[in-house]
């Protein structure tokens, strides 16, 4: 699995319970200015910000949402990463090797 990190200049914030990703001016044209995301995406974003690798991300999701099925956990993570990648909110942080979800 490729490794990603959150793009510098994208800020996770909360307004009246709504989670938002807001891009700084330098990213105009590259990322959307404001995107509303759900709570689980905000959880994953915070984990990515702190440098979590794929295994840790899976473990964190399993614990936070009490999901036992590893395929379900992976699908949630893959969908989140794909959505964030498509909006250029993530930067590649190199390749992981030997991880369970490669």
């Amino acid at each position: 699995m490729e490794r990603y990190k959150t793009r510098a200049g994208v800020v996770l914030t909360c307004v009246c319970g709504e989670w938002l990703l807001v891009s700084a001016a330098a990213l105009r044209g590259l990322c959307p200015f404001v995107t509303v995301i759900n709570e689980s995406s905000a959880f994953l974003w915070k984990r990515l910000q702190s440098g979590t690798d794929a295994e840790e991300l899976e473990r964190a999701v399993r614990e936070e949402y009490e999901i036992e099925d590893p395929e379900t956990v992976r699908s949630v993570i893959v969908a989140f990463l794909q959505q964030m990648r498509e909006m250029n909110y993530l930067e590649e942080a190199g390749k992981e090797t030997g991880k369970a979800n490669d």
Partner: protein
Amino acid sequence: MEKIYQAEYAGHPVRYVFLNPFTRQHFKFWLKPVEGEEYDIKATPEQVARTLAHMPETNPEYYAEYKFLILPTSDYLLRYRCCLFHAVAFLWRGRAWLLTAPSGTGKTTQFLNWRKLHPGEITMICGDLPVLELRDDGSVWVHSSNWNGKEGVGSFQSAPLGGTILLEQGGVNRIGRLNVSEAIPALFGQFISEYETEDQIRAVCALMDGMLSRYPAWKLVNLGDDASTELMRSVIAEETGGNDGTV
């Protein structure tokens, strides 16, 4: 030595150096000369030229400087949890009400309709860019500024926020509460900021959170006629008791 002039927004001083001496006239009574060499905001000739390039040809350079200063002023005020906000702000029954919308959508028309229909009931606080302030107790206050739009109507008043009305032109008159997910994208563009830094983004979001968590917001689809203004006034009065906008 450069001459330094100071304005105060929501009680916070901002010191300017002007490239063009005629720029000061647009600030009217808001400026006073101050001693010293330190200042907070000064445009560069390139920045003024870029602003001028986006304005109608008849506008002079000093007006471009005046318009350019809006953004750095607002971003400077964010450190005090204050921000310029694109709206007509008026005082009604002890509270400030914000009519907000993109330019040319009828903010001033709604204000003028109300004043005509109910003479003496409302007072203009600021015609274009009032200062919003998030206070330590979570309340939001609305203050005047020198940026009063093409009509140039404003005052030196401040008041706690009553509520926000987002205007949209339409073929019917209709008003309803604006929920948070609708309000956020609509209001983002009304806060004046370059959004250059994380601190600026967080300060704007904190202000928006204060606005939407404690005060009501409506969306008024309207024809710009007297009936639309009466509809807005009656709904605000009914839903807030007229003198207390908090929710």
